[in-house]
């Protein structure tokens, strides 16, 4: 893999491991927060953070879902995502080689250091928002996990091959719910359509490729997001048609999560998610 150096940003020394450690152009200065220079570490953290944040959002339903089966289902899916996040952040910490682990990355980073897409950090909203968001993510996730299961980075490929099997269950579940809600009562249709309208502008970000994505793709490690997008659109369109929901227009694309620019919601979520670990550092139970 050829080295790519930013013209405007000073690059910091790369990690100690042998795989994919060439420096790439750094993210915009205001968003780097001095965290990562190894694109592989960055890449692992991005995919880990998507799962950590969405898993936490889903777990907020525990004990509150409208029916018991769904309470259990959302908890199950959250568990899958958090398990995947643990693996991916663990790999990132190992690759980084600074003595951090998955817990340190989850509980002792600030919002600007998180690299998840903004779609997953939005509040859980009502049940329709949760399930429409979940489907929009799952339809992406089932594709990206499949692509990354062929990654040249064997540990990433292993985690993603496993995640892909789980994602297939997730997307079926959330897809069926989108149809049920969109094609259900007037009330469920209205709420599902409103959720889709509100969330749509966040659905491009997962497919935007930057220097990190391109470096990882060139190294055979990362996924070609440009190639996945048409497949995502086709499956989302099919399900929305079945559900009787209208995909909104509008050109505005929310972006920034991959370089640490987040909505205000992430900070609030992290405050709750991290407070126990930060109040009692080193505690075990």
């Amino acid at each position, binding site marked *: 893999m050829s080295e790519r150096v930013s013209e405007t940003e000073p690059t910091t020394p790369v990690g100690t491991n042998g795989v994919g450690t060439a420096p790439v152009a750094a993210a915009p200065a205001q968003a780097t927060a001095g965290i990562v220079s190894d694109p592989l570490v960055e890449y692992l953290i991005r995919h880990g953070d998507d799962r950590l944040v969405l898993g936490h959002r889903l777990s907020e339903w525990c004990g509150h879902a409208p029916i018991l*089966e*769904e309470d*259990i*289902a959302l*908890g*199950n*899916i*959250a*568990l*899958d*995502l*958090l*398990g*995947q996040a*643990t*693996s991916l952040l663990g790999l990132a910490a190992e690759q980084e080689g600074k003595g951090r682990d998955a817990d340190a990355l989850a509980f002792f980073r600030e919002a600007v250091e998180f690299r998840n897409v903004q779609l997953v950090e939005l509040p859980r909203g009502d049940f329709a928002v949760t399930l429409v968001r979940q489907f929009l993510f799952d*339809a992406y996730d*089932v*594709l990206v996990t499949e692509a990354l299961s062929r990654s040249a980075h*064997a*540990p990433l*490929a*292993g*985690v993603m*091959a*496993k*995640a*892909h*099997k*789980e994602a*297939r*269950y997730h*997307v*079926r*579940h959330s*897809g*069926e719910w989108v*149809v049920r809600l969109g094609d259900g009562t007037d009330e469920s249709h209205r709420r599902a359509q409103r959720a889709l309208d509100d969330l749509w502008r966040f659905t491009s970000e997962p497919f935007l490729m930057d220097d990190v994505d391109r470096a990882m793709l060139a190294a055979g490690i990362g996924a070609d997001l440009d190639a996945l997008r048409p*497949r995502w659109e086709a*499956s989302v369109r*099919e*399900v929305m048609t*079945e559900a009787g929901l209208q995909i909104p227009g509008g050109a505005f694309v929310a972006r920034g999560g991959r370089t640490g620019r987040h909505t205000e919601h992430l900070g609030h979520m992290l405050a709750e998610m991290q407070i126990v670990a930060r109040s009692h550092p080193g505690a*075990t*139970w």
Partner: protein
Amino acid sequence: MVDRRRPGAALDPAALARALGDGWEPESLDVPSDSPEIPPQPLTADAVWAALHEVPDPEVPVVSVVELGIVRDVRIDGDALTVVITPTYSGCPAMREIERDVLAALRACGWASARVVTTYSPAWTTDWMSDATREKLRAYGIAPPGAGRAAAGETLVTLRRRGTAPERVPCPFCGSHDTALRSAFGSTACKALHFCNACRQPFEEFKPI
């Protein structure tokens, strides 16, 4: 508690681990392998597999961690023993427990320095279960995973069209196929929830993956 693993073990290390609680690490269980209470057995692959066959899955205790395919490999290099395990699901909360149980079983055989490592590749699949294991699950009241179903289906989102018959999982109690899926996500990550219209019983299915 009843130690199902090995008669004659003076101290159940798993119980000890639970009693010790905070900060317990597998290493802390290590005692010298020449401990008089536990004469070490000869370290052979067959003996290790036999010991692991006695370790029940904590959530489905009718089958062992070997039968479920969680134990992937046994590596012996001189005196060093490494057991490779893989999770059924990424977030399976029983993995830590399984690791402890495996170490405890090996300890009971006198292989105190055994290590357990976790691998994610190849990803666990229900296709690894033998017919005998599937029958054990069914007899226990859990519908076994359908053979080959794990690999089936290439479409991204498989929605059921109106009027098409959904997939029916036979009831493990009465054998009827007049059943309905209640939820693809059951009491544990690896199970789905069904209902039998014939015998009016809810039942779980070990879902194919």
